[in-house]
Each structure stands twice: as structure tokens, then as C-alpha cells.
């Protein structure tokens, strides 16, 4: 692959619609930020993630994906998007379709009008992604910003450069079935404020995230969820044997590090957001918490490294499920403190 060639094609793409492809860590934040940028509201990915209260943790054994418990480091797909829009005063139009041909027709009409639109798709049907990443995962967002020689021009926020996809492939990707089926979901902003005072949305975003992490009752969600996972994980090797325990661990690492988390289970993106927030709100202590959440992200990464060695059977003597569980408790305590402080944030004082 010739890298200079790619750059020039990115510029060509940009010339087509004045659409600027910016790579991001996570698809939902990236799509939202890129769409808003096109409509004149300049906002970073981390800012969208923070204002949308994206950071979270949950471990829910009775909700299963591929027979493994659901573990997530972020809020449910779609929530970042809807919360960020509400707090920023952005109105989005959302379409869903029953008929695939009609859905493609409406998409074409929007593109003829010169408007880039976002689509929900399944990664399994996106041929431009590396094969290793293509599972049946239905909540992937991307932007279509034009057509060329019958192919659709795609700005996929996790990709370094814009790409293309055929009509047939895009249709399949939009009408994949299964959990969270996209049903051809298509969305675009209809009103975007030109200037936004970010202070209020930031405070609202942080306070909601802090509440979600520390105050939701029950064992599964937020900091409680981390402790719950720690308790369960300690017993895995005895309860289900090395192999199943390894599979469970692998699933958690994938949720933490695979596409879109920006590393450390979204803790680093949130750190970037807190740093930006500290400057905008002129509150030095938010910067201190940004450093703290970065430390927490580093510990999550240590957790991943140790877990990886354990299920590859390359662990050293003091690396075992107990040690993993202790690491989780440390993360839980640290995040409990961070989000406890953030809960007290207000615009005054």
C-alpha cells in the first residue's frame, strides 16, 4: 500500500462534499463528532464521550453473548449519542426501515442533496475491515458522504482513511439480523447550534457518569459491578475449569481493549475529556482527577496483560486469578473515589 496515494484520495474524498474524515477511537463518538463538525460545531471525540456520559462498567451474568456473560466498559450503544445531542441542543432525525431497497433509495436521495448521513451497520458485512475483527456485531456506526462509480464513499471513524463499499455489501450490513439489529437505521442532524457554551453540558455529563458509576443500586452496575466481577472471577478456575475460565477472561479483555475503547476500557478517553473539561471550566482539580483516571486505565491495562498471560499459560508464579481479582478491587476503589469527587461538581464555586 502506498501511503501518499491514500492521502491524496482522502483529499479527493474531502473535495467531493466538503466532508472531513477524522479518525476516532470509538465509532459512536466519532460519528457524532464528525457529523457535528460538518454542520459547523467543532467538538472533539473525547468531548462527545464525556458530555454523553459514556464511561461506565457493568457485568451482568444472566445477559449472555456467545454463552459468555455481558461485560461492558461503556453505556449501552446509542446512549452516548442521544445524551450528547440532548445536552448540546442538537436535533437529529432518525429513520428506520422495513424494506431494504427503500432504505437504500432514501439514502441515495440524501446524498443527492449533498448531506452526509450516519448509518448503523453490522461489522460482519463490512469487507474493508480486517477479517479478524468481523463478528456479528450490529451496533457499528459509520458515515456515508457520497457516491462514486456506483460505490458508496464511507467515513468509518475507526479507519485511518475513508473507504468505499458496494451497494450490495452496504445493504447487507444495514439489514443484518440478531441482537440489536440495525433495521437500516439512518440518522443526521437537522438543527445544530453554531455556538455552544460547553460548560453546562460538561457538568451534566460528568454528574450523570458519576451517579451511574457510584450510586446505582444493585451488584451489576458501576463500581459495584467491578467488585462483583472481582468476586466471581476469583472462583472461576475452581467452578468451571481452566478452559472455560480462560474463555470468560478472553471475553472481558475483548470488551476492554478491542476496537473502539481507545485503550484501558475507555478510561483514557475519559481522562482526555476531563483534561479538556478542566480547562473549559477552569477547575484545576478536574485535571488532578484526569491524572487519577489515567492511573486507573493503566491498572486496567495491567489487568489485561496479566489475563493475557494467564490464558496463554505463560503466567509467572504470582500471576493467577486471585491476583487479577485484587487488581479489579484496586480499580474499583480508585474509581469509587474519583467518581465520588466528580459527583460534587457544580458550575458555581
Amino acid at each position, binding site marked *: *500500500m502506498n501511503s501518499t496515494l491514500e492521502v491524496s484520495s482522502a483529499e479527493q474524498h474531502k473535495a467531493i462534499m466538503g466532508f472531513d474524515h477524522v*479518525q*476516532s*477511537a470509538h465509532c459512536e463518538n466519532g460519528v457524532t463528532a464528525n457529523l457535528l463538525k460538518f454542520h459547523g460545531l467543532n467538538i472533539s471525540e*473525547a468531548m462527545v464521550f464525556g458530555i454523553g456520559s459514556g464511561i461506565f462498567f457493568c457485568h451482568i451474568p444472566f445477559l449472555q453473548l456467545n454463552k459468555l456473560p455481558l461485560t461492558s466498559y461503556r453505556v449501552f450503544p446509542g446512549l452516548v449519542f442521544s445524551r450528547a445531542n440532548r445536552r448540546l441542543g442538537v436535533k437529529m432525525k432518525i429513520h428506520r426501515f422495513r424494506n431494504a431497497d427503500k432504505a437504500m433509495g432514501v439514502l441515495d436521495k440524501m446524498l443527492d442533496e449533498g448531506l452526509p448521513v450516519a448509518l448503523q451497520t453490522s461489522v*460482519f458485512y463490512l469487507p*474493508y*475491515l*480486517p*477479517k*479478524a*475483527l468481523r*463478528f*456479528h456485531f450490529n451496533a457499528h456506526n459509520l458515515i456515508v458522504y457520497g457516491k462514486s462509480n456506483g460505490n458508496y464513499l464511507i467515513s468509518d471513524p*475507526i*479507519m*485511518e482513511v475513508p473507504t468505499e463499499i458496494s451497494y450490495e455489501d452496504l445493504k*447487507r450490513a444495514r439489514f443484518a*439480523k*440478531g441482537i440489536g*439489529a440495525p433495521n437500516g437505521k439512518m440518522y443526521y442532524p437537522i438543527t445544530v447550534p453554531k455556538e455552544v457554551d460547553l460548560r453546562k453540558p460538561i457538568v451534566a455529563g460528568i454528574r450523570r457518569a458519576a451517579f451511574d458509576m457510584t450510586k446505582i443500586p444493585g451488584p451489576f452496575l458501576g463500581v459495584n459491578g467491578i467488585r462483583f466481577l472481582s468476586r466471581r472471577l476469583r472462583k472461576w478456575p475452581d467452578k468451571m475449569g481452566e478452559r472455560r475460565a*480462560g*474463555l470468560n*477472561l*478472553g*471475553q472481558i*479483555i*475483548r470488551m476492554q*481493549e*478491542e*476496537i473502539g475503547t*481507545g*485503550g*484501558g476500557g475507555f478510561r*483514557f*478517553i475519559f*481522562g*482526555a475529556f476531563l*483534561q*479538556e473539561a478542566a480547562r473549559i471550566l477552569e477547575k484545576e482539580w478536574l485535571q488532578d482527577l*484526569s*491524572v487519577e483516571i*489515567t492511573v486507573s*486505565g*493503566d491498572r486496567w*491495562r495491567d489487568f*489485561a*496483560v496479566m*489475563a*493475557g*498471560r494467564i*490464558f*496463554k499459560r505463560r503466567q509467572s508464579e504470582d500471576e493467577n486469578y486471585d491476583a487479577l481479582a485484587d487488581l479489579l478491587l484496586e480499580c474499583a476503589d480508585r474509581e469509587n473515589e474519583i467518581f465520588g469527587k466528580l459527583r460534587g461538581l457544580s458550575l458555581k464555586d
Partner: protein
Amino acid sequence: MKEEDVPQEDENKLYEGKNRLLEYAVDKDGNYTQKLSVGFEPKNVALEQAWELIDDQVAESKKGVEAGELSTLAYHMEKNLMDPGLLAQHMGYFTWRVKRHLRPKIFAKLKTSVLEKYAEVLKMTVDQLKTIE
């Protein structure tokens, strides 16, 4: 995570050199910045583990077909990372109907129109559907 510590590990070329992913890290002045990563060892291992599991299931269904216990549809279903439930949703059938079609005797009697629909959903020809390559 410091900028220089952002992992660049992809021993087995999992990502085919196609795309680097964006990560967030802190530079030497403590400012957050973005950095591209080619991969992270534990993540690669977890991903490989998931694929090994799938490969096992595909191999098992292949054995099943060769032993005459499963129809070729079962093999192609596994190859497409589907279970009967998901395949049924794509077909617009009830799950039990797809499960029936996994039996060789019943699969052999299927109408061409049904076979064509399976072939379309699984993105292959009817002839391919009837064999395991």
C-alpha cells in the same frame, strides 16, 4: 498510559496491516494526545482465542457432515459465525425449521427456492451450499 508506551504489537498480523487503531495517551508534558496503535498483545491473544473457538466449531460441524449426521448447511452456518437462531432470522423462518434443515435427509429434500434463499443469505451459490469445499 504514556505516549511512548502505546503498544505496537501484532506478531501474527491479525489486522493484515490494514488499519491502525486510535488510542489516547499522555505526552511528556502531561497533555492528552492521540496515538495510532498496530495492536496490543493481550487483545490479540483474546481475539485469537475467539477465532480458535469458532474454528473448532467449524471443524466439528465438518466432521458431522462427513459422518452423515449433519447437512452441509450446518457447516456453512458455522462458517458464517451463525447459530440456528440467527440464520432463522435472516431467512424469516422459525428456529426449529432451520434446525430441521440441519439434518441431512431433510436438507436433501429441500425445494430449490428454499436452497436459493439459503444461498443468498450465506452469499454463495446453491452448488457451493450443497458441498463442503
